[in-house]
């Protein structure tokens, strides 16, 4: 016999967010106004430091159809790679004009989602190894039983991506490309296009974090 370990309470099971997730999390998209302040897809205030970017794309299902009822949240560091959270040793100097978190629903017609933010800086990873600039994404929708975690990297950060400890964990090099957002310039605005494939040949890499 050995001593019993202290009991660990089991985590509450996940359930799908369902088709009407907008009601609770982005009621303006469900079609009504209720809260004084609503959360939004605009992370960067006018004074935010760094390169202003739009991030947009669509989420595709296994039939390659856009998912029109998906909800996406983003969590990111500021332009200098600092998270506004006490676990980050540099959080005290994190950019106050950047809300590192945002949420949005895809458009009900086109399936397009969009965030307005700044490009994050490189974040210190495990063992002090730098991670290439990235956004952390969390995806929920009808038909998704437990939220999917993934990362968006920037395709033009070739050198940093090549050294990124997380991208390099992906055994099949071709799958790393599923995490790279493509840079475009539209009317002087920098846009990163990031499509997410839930299933199939182009399936995006999802993480168990």
């Amino acid at each position, binding site marked *: 016999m050995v001593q019993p370990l202290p009991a660990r309470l089991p985590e509450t099971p996940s359930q799908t967010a369902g088709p*009407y997730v907008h009601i609770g999390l982005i009621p303006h998209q469900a079609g009504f106004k209720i809260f004084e302040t609503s959360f939004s897809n605009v992370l960067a205030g006018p004074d935010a430091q760094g390169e202003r970017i739009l991030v947009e794309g669509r989420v595709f299902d296994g039939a390659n159809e856009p998912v029109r009822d998906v909800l996406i949240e983003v969590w990111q560091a500021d332009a200098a790679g600092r998270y*506004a959270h006490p676990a980050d040793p540099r959080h005290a100097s994190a950019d106050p004009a950047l809300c590192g978190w945002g949420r949005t629903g895809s458009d009900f017609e086109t399936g397009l989602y969009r965030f307005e933010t700044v490009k994050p800086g490189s974040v210190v990873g495990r*063992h002090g190894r730098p991670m290439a600039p990235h956004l952390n994404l*969390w995806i929920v929708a*009808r*038909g998704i039983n437990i939220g999917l975690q993934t990362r968006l990297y920037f395709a033009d950060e070739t050198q940093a991506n090549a050294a990124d400890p997380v991208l390099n964990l992906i055994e099949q090099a071709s799958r790393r490309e599923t995490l790279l957002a493509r840079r475009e310039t539209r009317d002087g605005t920098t846009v990163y296009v990031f499509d997410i494939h839930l299933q199939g040949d182009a399936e995006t890499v999802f993480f*168990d974090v």
Partner: protein
Amino acid sequence: MAEHREFLQRDRRVHPPAFTPEYKTSVLRAPRRALLSLQNSLSEVTGPTFGHDAIGPLDNDLILNYAQDGQPIGERIIVTGRVCDEHGRGVPHTLVEFWQANAGGRYRHRNDRYLAPIDPNFGGCGRTLTDADGHYVFRTIKPGPYPWRNNLNSWRPAHIHFSVFGSGFAQRLITQMYFEGDPLIWRDPMVLGIPDRAAAERLIAPLDLDAAIPLDMLAYRFDIVLRGRQSTVFENKLQGN
């Protein structure tokens, strides 16, 4: 500081897998490749925090927060509970959001075409921050079941959707609360998608008469457990020493 520790690995056996074909929408929305396991970095142990400035005074009162010319129709209930981690420690000052149908099972959502009517005095969403011990409370109308296009005669049990943050982005969780005694629960493919029946039972809120307000409203109790953190300090591992 609890914030500086890595999360315990998520036990996926308590969660529904991605592919649960009895819930038809999951068939084309389930990744088929294995998830890539990732050791925590700052990107996972950090997450957004919310202050009281984000929350309005009626945000946790669904009986009043969309009242136009009266109060909503239905069973008046209080829902209380505690958000804690796997070690039983309360998760303080974290954002809890909730949304639901009205007493007739109709959502105030432009995509809901169910013939049951909208309640003009009911919005169906709310939010609150947990207190210093992890407790939360809101009051609402008990939602009704509603039909959905899965099988021909599929009905969701009465439920309230919950969204919880915790202190790190890897704790992010969305779930649903069901009501004690509802005969639809064990016919529901979302509930039955959870492989472990004991885990599914933890989504069923018991009636809590002690929390009821006599002559006013009944109460249900729904506790939520988020992932716990390891006992070793994260920064030591981060720096590789």
